[in-house]
């Protein structure tokens, strides 16, 4: 029988300071990268603009395309090779020109340079300023709504402390994903947002599995005299192989999607892959640890209050 972890007994909670440090370092690196890029890079879904995917019948130089596009003066365009040296995407900022004109002008400009050969416009996406703004607001609501939904579910199913710690772990995962996106120069688009929302739902999964185990162990009255930290650590170890295995299969699927799913799905698959990894990590190292620290902090404060009351009584 193949087995990943047999009766594992790693001290995850004991090493939580290191985990916090690692997470903070990662998130900080991501935030610095985002700050240096001048904020998250928004794709046209949110910023508005036009995206045109074109395929030439021969390999062409980016400079030639740029020269052709510069002539129509539609603002600063971004030209990127897209998975194949004959295939490119052009991103054009919002312009005064009505949307229906943009594609036609680009087509005409490209046709004027005979060196570019024949070109096929394969995809056009135009998002106007209103729609972009609407989507930004809706996106924010969607992220908040899913977090609130999960907070409520975990709080009702377990307790508020678990709910808040789950959300903290989810925020951690989202921040790591955003940082990873910025570090690899990816843009925030609708599919990426879909991936983030999925990760929000997925990341909390394993955390729930571990909490459930804590409760079950308590019900069975596992060895008396175990501290809360030890109880959590045991639960994480008991559920470790399933946490890692379930993540592993999902990781396999998303990595393959990243590699073979085509350029259009690449960003979505990337965020899912990063999210699955950080989601698993945060379940093992962060979520439980946060509850332990929180509980310790609440108890310490209660004791201080008791002492203060005792002192006041004796005085």
């Amino acid at each position, binding site marked *: *029988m*193949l*087995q990943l972890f047999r009766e594992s007994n790693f001290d995850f909670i004991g090493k939580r300071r290191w985990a916090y440090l690692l997470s903070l370092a990662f998130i900080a690196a991501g935030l610095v990268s985002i700050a240096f890029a001048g904020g998250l890079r928004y794709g046209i879904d949110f910023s508005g603009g036009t995206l045109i*995917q074109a395929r030439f019948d021969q390999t062409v130089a980016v400079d030639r395309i740029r020269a052709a596009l510069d002539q129509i003066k539609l603002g600063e365009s971004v030209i990127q090779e897209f998975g194949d040296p004959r295939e490119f995407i052009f991103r054009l900022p919002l312009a005064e020109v*009505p*949307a*229906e004109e943009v*594609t036609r002008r680009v087509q005409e400009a490209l046709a004027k340079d005979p060196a570019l050969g024949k070109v*096929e*416009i*394969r*995809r*056009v*996406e*135009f*998002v*106007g300023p*209103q*729609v972009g703004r609407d*989507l930004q607001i*809706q*996106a924010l609501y*969607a992220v908040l*709504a*899913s977090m609130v*939904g*999960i907070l409520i*579910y975990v709080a009702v199913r377990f307790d508020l402390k678990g709910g808040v710690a789950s959300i903290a772990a989810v925020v951690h995962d989202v921040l790591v994903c955003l940082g990873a996106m910025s570090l690899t120069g990816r843009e925030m688009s*609708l599919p990426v947002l*879909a991936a983030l*929302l*999925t990760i*929000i*739902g*997925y990341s909390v*999964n394993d955390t*729930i*599995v571990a909490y*459930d185990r804590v409760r*079950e162990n308590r019900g069975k009255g596992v060895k008396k005299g175990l501290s809360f930290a030890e109880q959590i650590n045991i639960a994480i170890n*008991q559920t470790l*192989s*399933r946490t890692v*295995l*379930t993540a592993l*299969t*999902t*990781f*396999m*699927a*998303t990595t*393959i*999607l990243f590699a*073979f*799913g*085509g350029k*259009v*799905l690449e960003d*979505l698959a990337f965020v*899912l892959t990063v999210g699955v990894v950080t989601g698993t990590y945060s379940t093992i190292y962060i979520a439980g640890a946060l509850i332990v620290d929180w509980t310790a902090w609440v108890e310490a404060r209660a004791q201080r209050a008791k002492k203060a009351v005792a002192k006041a009584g004796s005085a």
Partner: protein
Amino acid sequence: MRRYLWLRIGIILVAILGSLTYLYPPPGIREYLYGPGSGLARKGGLLPPTLNLGLDLQGGIHLVLGVDVDKVLESQVERAAADIRGSLEKKGIGVAQAARQGTMEMVVQLASPQSWNDALTVLNEFPAFDRKSTDQSAGRILLALREREAATQRDLAVRQALETIRNRVDQFGVAEPTIQQQGENRILVQLPGIQDPERAKALIGKIALLEFKMLDERTSVEDALAGRVPETSEVLYQRRVDKETKVERKIPYVVQKRTLLTGAELNRAEVQADPNSPGNWQVAIEFNAVGTRIFGEITEQNVGKLLAIILDGNVNSAPRINERIPGGRAVITGQFTIEDARDLVIVLRAGALPAPVKILEERSVGPSLGADSIRQGMLAIIASALVVFVFMLVYYRLSGLIADVALGLNLVILLATMAGFHATLTLPGIAGIALTIGMAVDTNILIFERIREEFRTGKTIRAAIDAGFSRAFRTVVDTHVTVLVSAAILYNFGTGPVKGFAVSLAIGIAASLFTAVFFTRLIFDLLYTGRRRIQTLSV
């Protein structure tokens, strides 16, 4: 636990047969399941033929149009201003100014404040307007269109635009278009399988307001361009694109503002070869009874003068009226290619848009990219299914095989459910399926790990299986709920393609409850209980 064994086997068989029927319906049943005409659906390919593919997979164009309803209100206020001026002047009240201000307001300035009371009596005949402020000593009244009236007009404009666009799309000939109102003044148009999105956009977005106006032959073009135009006239241009050089020429005309006749009175429009200019096409039009009478009167009263035919504010042509034209027939010429002429016929037949529309969002995908996306997406699905399949088999052996069969069943049910509900499979939806493959076996992993654990504590095979399934079940539900919460929010938020992701993810996850719990449990019960049961646990 061999309770209801046959019932459970029956349920599984019904699910499998039902799914296959929905995916590959036999000829007679297809019509029954998917409605008449569904036999025309695309032929197989990599995906089952009954699946409804999104525009990003089959190619097509998705447009969100904004109807500029303010323009409707503006012209309504302008028309009312002209009417009010006319009514006042008919009563002998001098009007210095009656003009629109902003979108919904109108200033009426009387020539003298003495006629104040008479003027107010006349204004009472225009109940659509509210008196916003009055200044009796100055003889000045500010009117505003009532909000209720404005709301009615806006609503009407959007519905009219919707109807007109629907007519145009119908005449253009698109299979299964979607045209619906979105929010207050947006219109969603989805045209699958369109080969030339540019042409479709031009056709939908054209206002197509055909107007007949007399030229102002008393004002010279030079004077008009220098700004010396009478209040009742304006300069309009004829645009001609040279076919060789592609350079656009603009020829100015001085045209009287008054519209004599519009395209609303048309009865017929059709394409003809232009007899005067070989290789070019023209559009012959025929008015209805009202239009024919008016057209007869216009031509009778203006023999020898120039009549401008104006389309969307551009002069198309300005022929001289040689004699009264009684039959209500005319031609629109303008160096049209046959495609231009055909499209003009379509928009003239379908009628003008009540207000300009603006493209707020466009997503169009060519058919070749759609086909590539399907190929790559399917490759990703097949590859991840294979990898997960092998992994489960190696790690859990016989139980892994059972989970793999459950996974296959999951995919079949997922696709069949999408087909049955007419849900749309999009490219992100394919990603959702790939993700489902990874997550669906999670449920089995949870169960198998639990069974192993129970077995280690010294339970018998059957007790371990029972405990494993029942203990893991609660966890499985928990994990499903959180992903479903995310998917539901995503569905509510998303636009087309992203909605597709939410749909396939949600159905896949829900189906995994059935396949990974109900189905695998049944197989375990069949294998490990009963008289000919397996004696060793293979997990």
